């Protein structure tokens, strides 16, 4: 019962914030609404027994990535563009295509993946599900190789960002 209330609250706020992200003129407002989406999703992660992921979402996504976004928005000082949406028929095509994608995903969800998926009852959760200890255990044993590759990827991203954003002293 509490889960239903919290789920409705978080999902409603996430969708409202998401609509505001794409339909606002001021980029700073869009960024703030995206932070709202991230916080709502963090709440939903807690409902889904993913405590570590919820905390990481706040710490990294809302606390670091969006701050970077805000910095760039303020640095570039981009005013809202006029007109707001892409002009002409491309706008209609965009909405239509998105609607088609939504209907497709909805169909997959409702029919449980077509012939292959069979509706299964939720599996029982092992103790410590979603806790940092479990994540650490799996991350450093089963998923060790992707973890190391991700660290190299992040190093590349750091170097790339520094090189790209440096002013060339001609």
């Amino acid at each position, binding site marked *: 019962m*509490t889960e239903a209330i919290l789920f409705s609250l978080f999902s409603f706020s996430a969708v409202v914030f998401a609509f505001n992200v794409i339909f606002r003129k*001021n980029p*700073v*407002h869009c960024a*703030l609404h995206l*932070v709202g989406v991230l916080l709502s999703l963090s709440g939903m992660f807690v409902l889904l027994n993913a*405590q*570590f992921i*919820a*905390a*990481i979402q*706040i*710490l990294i996504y*809302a*606390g*670091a990535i969006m*701050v970077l976004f*805000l*910095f760039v928005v*303020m640095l570039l000082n981009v005013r809202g563009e006029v007109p707001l949406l892409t002009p002409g028929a491309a706008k209609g095509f965009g909405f239509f295509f998105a609607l088609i994608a939504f209907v497709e995903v909805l169909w997959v969800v409702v029919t449980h993946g077509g012939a292959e998926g069979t509706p299964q009852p939720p599996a029982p959760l092992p103790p410590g599900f979603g*806790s*940092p*200890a479990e994540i650490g255990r799996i991350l450093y044993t089963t998923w060790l190789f992707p973890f190391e590759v991700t660290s190299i990827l992040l190093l590349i991203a750091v170097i790339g960002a520094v090189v790209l954003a440096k002013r060339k002293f001609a």
Partner: protein
Amino acid sequence: MDAAFLIESAVKVLIVLGFVLLGVPLIVWMERKVIGHMQDRIGPQRVGPFGLLQTIADGIKLFFKEDIIPAQADRVVFILAPALSVITAFVALTVVPFGDTITVAGRTVYLHITDVNVAILWVLGTTSMGVYGIVLGGWASNSKYPLLGGLRSSAQMISYELAQGISLVSVILMTGTLSLASIVRQQEHMWFIVPQFFAFVIYILCGIAETNRAPFDLPEAETELVAGFHTEFSSMKFALYFLAEYANMMVVSAIAISVFFGGWRGPFLPPVVWFLIKLSLFLFFYVWLRATFPRLRYDQLMAFGWKVLLPASLLNLTVTAVVVALQNNP
């Protein structure tokens, strides 16, 4: 999720809220008195006994000031920014254990609002969210000095967040848990300050930089940037920023106490009293630093954070990891 649990949580939240709202005027009074005496003068002494009501008088004065919003400012964000600062400061206190357990009406009540198994990540996350209050305050003012102050302050805060987190990870390696209540419980025989002294030093330096306190308070220095990001804020919004700064000081001190100094542990007195004693000592240390050291220049500050504290915390982490690994697999 029964009614008793809800009532218990609500009472705990109200108590912590009241504690912070009453504690901040006391901290401000202590700061003014202590800095006064360190500067060979008396400090507030006329309003109430020993000047204790001075902060209340200042609060009432701030409340009655005119609330000005600049014409070109972004209204919604302008009003939101101080609220964000205050909210993140208060929310970080929900996982701090103020004491052990007490028995009320037959129920065992733990003296923390909640004990999540990711408590340290929660605290780090909410202090990261505290950056928004500052950067948005600077932006929404639509004015040069606040913008510069806000950007500098937030750049400083995100630079020192890394070293702060990594120094806490060194302790987590030793405890094996992220929950603050468990960390305090594990310090029965030895406080973690003893094996992790360097982590504590790094953490407290980062904490001072995070809360924009002297000697790291260039972004809100009056002589350099008017008043930094809170230039254009008046009346209650300024009071909220003020409140948020001191509440953040309390958060940093509370985490340092819980992680390094045994939390509420101590010989004879009840646990809550020990916690308050340690908290007061930490806050006195904050004020002492402010009275003693000159301000760091901004480039010195950033160089210190990136080039000194971050490698030091990583080195500490490596050494701790090696020692813990050798202990587990000799």
